[in-house]
């Protein structure tokens, strides 16, 4: 650096004519920069790369009983769609999933609303979450059997167990992290408890809540696949879990992977078309998440 010298004296300047015409055009981006800016394109490339890795690894492994190639799986997937067996199983599962998920969310909402308004509620939620969240579904088996018997009822019960705790945990933690100023603003208007929760806490905690919803959704899938095996399905036909289980019994591994591929595809769809849109319409737009 130069020696610190006193700044030079300068004459006063007054700009009489101000620049006008603010519509500055953005610096044009190069073709590649624009392509790279496109999320859909980037993700497609990623997915293609992942599929390639799968294919290469499976080929190298050469044990299609254990790990079929992507093309084999793709073909089984196509066949499953064509014959309708996979589609049907998927519909069945998704329908169950939505019911369980919705119910789980309703319970989570009730639990956190209760937790946020009363101290007993907070204690209860804390305690129940730390007790029940680590419990495997098998622990619920007897109660599920007594209360709902075999079939859908029990599966939904287990789904609720999967969704409830993670959503409640994230939501409650989110509520507690809501800026004190927003809380004070909310309280200033004499909102009812319900309005306070829905108008202040929920939007304020939305980043956390959305994460909870994502995790809950993923766990609902995981649980469903397992639960369909455990709790059985009516013999008229089952969901994806059953599809996977049965094909495994038949040692038809490409079909097993086709079922799993369906789970993956659903994950991608829900994440990119439901959660992402939700995020963009809310927390991104509000500047609450970068």
């Amino acid at each position, binding site marked *: 650096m130069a020696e610190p010298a006193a700044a030079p004296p300068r004459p006063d300047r007054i700009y009489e004519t101000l620049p006008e015409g603010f519509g500055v055009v953005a610096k044009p981006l190069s073709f590649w920069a624009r392509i790279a800016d496109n999320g859909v394109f980037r993700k497609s490339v990623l997915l293609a790369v992942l599929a390639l890795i799968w294919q290469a690894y499976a080929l190298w492994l050469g044990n299609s009983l254990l790990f079929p190639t992507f093309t084999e799986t793709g073909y089984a997937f196509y066949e499953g769609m064509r014959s309708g067996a996979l589609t049907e199983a998927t519909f069945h599962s998704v329908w169950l999933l939505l019911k369980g998920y919705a119910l789980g969310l309703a319970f989570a909402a009730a639990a956190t609303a209760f937790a946020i308004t009363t101290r007993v509620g907070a204690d209860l939620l804390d305690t129940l979450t730390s007790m029940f969240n680590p419990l495997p579904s098998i622990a619920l088996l007897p109660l599920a059997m007594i209360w709902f018997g075999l079939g859908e009822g029990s599966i939904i019960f287990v789904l609720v167990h999967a969704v409830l705790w993670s959503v409640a945990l994230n939501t409650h933690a989110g509520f507690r992290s809501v*800026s004190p*100023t*927003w809380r*004070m*603003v909310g*309280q*200033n*208007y*004499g*909102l009812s408890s319900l*309005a306070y929760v829905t*108008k*202040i806490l929920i*939007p*304020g905690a*939305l980043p956390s809540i959305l994460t909870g919803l994502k995790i809950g959704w993923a766990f609902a899938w995981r649980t469903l696949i397992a639960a369909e095996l455990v709790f059985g399905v009516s013999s008229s036909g089952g969901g994806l879990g059953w599809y996977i289980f049965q094909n495994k019994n038949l040692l038809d591994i490409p079909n097993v992977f086709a079922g799993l591929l369906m789970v993956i595809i659903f994950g991608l769809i829900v994440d990119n078309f439901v959660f992402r849109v939700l995020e963009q319409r*809310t927390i991104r*737009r*509000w*500047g*609450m998440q970068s």
Partner: protein
Amino acid sequence: MTDPNPKPLLAVDGLTLQYRTRDSIVTATYRVSFDVFTSDRYVILGPSGCGKSTLLKAVGGYIRPVEGSITLAGAQISKPGPDRVLVFQEFDQLLPWKTVRENVLFALVASGRLKGREAAERADHYIAKVNLTGFADSYPHMLSGGMKQRVAIARGMAMEPQILLMDEPFAALDALTRGKMQEELLQLWDETKVTLLFVTHSIPEAVRIGNRILLLTPHPGRAKAELGSTGTDLVGPDGLTLSARIDSLLFDRHPTARSNAHG
């Protein structure tokens, strides 16, 4: 004027406020008493960290007194409510999930003040008063610091509450905007005679806005003096302007030694 011995609207009596943290207790104000009458423009003035915000939050019902009492129209204050609207000092007091207009509207509607077209009109009216009509549909994160504060001022004014509590609302504003906001506030007072409890750290602002000025000592805040003001910086019987008197009282320095430091 007609009532020779009126009851104060807000009576603060021997108020001690403390923050309890895990390791320590911080006393914010200590045995502060004052009365605010209906249609007062009551200014609280004191140095940084002396407990002005805490005091205002206690009147807002957010902080429980450790000692003493706060009564509004005879009733003990126990929780926040729309009869006392607070304009906070913090820049994040706007709800980020609502646009400027929605923020103002929400306050009106949620508190049951107004609804529908009336609420919308009132909101737009006050947004115009703070010169933000062009930004009515922007979200708060797209505003500058001063603009956020102006929205909060519009929101507080639009509520036209029984008592309006303002915590350094104009601190983030430039001279022109600040002057305009002060004029708007005084004009609003002329129209509605709303009771104001106004925190500021600026002596000229206190003199201009207030009809009563409470001076607090440095931390922990105690009442040092309560002075009347006519809105102009008149020379008093002791030959000092009001602001010079305040300055000497607040900073315990000799009136003539007063520098022109505050900007």
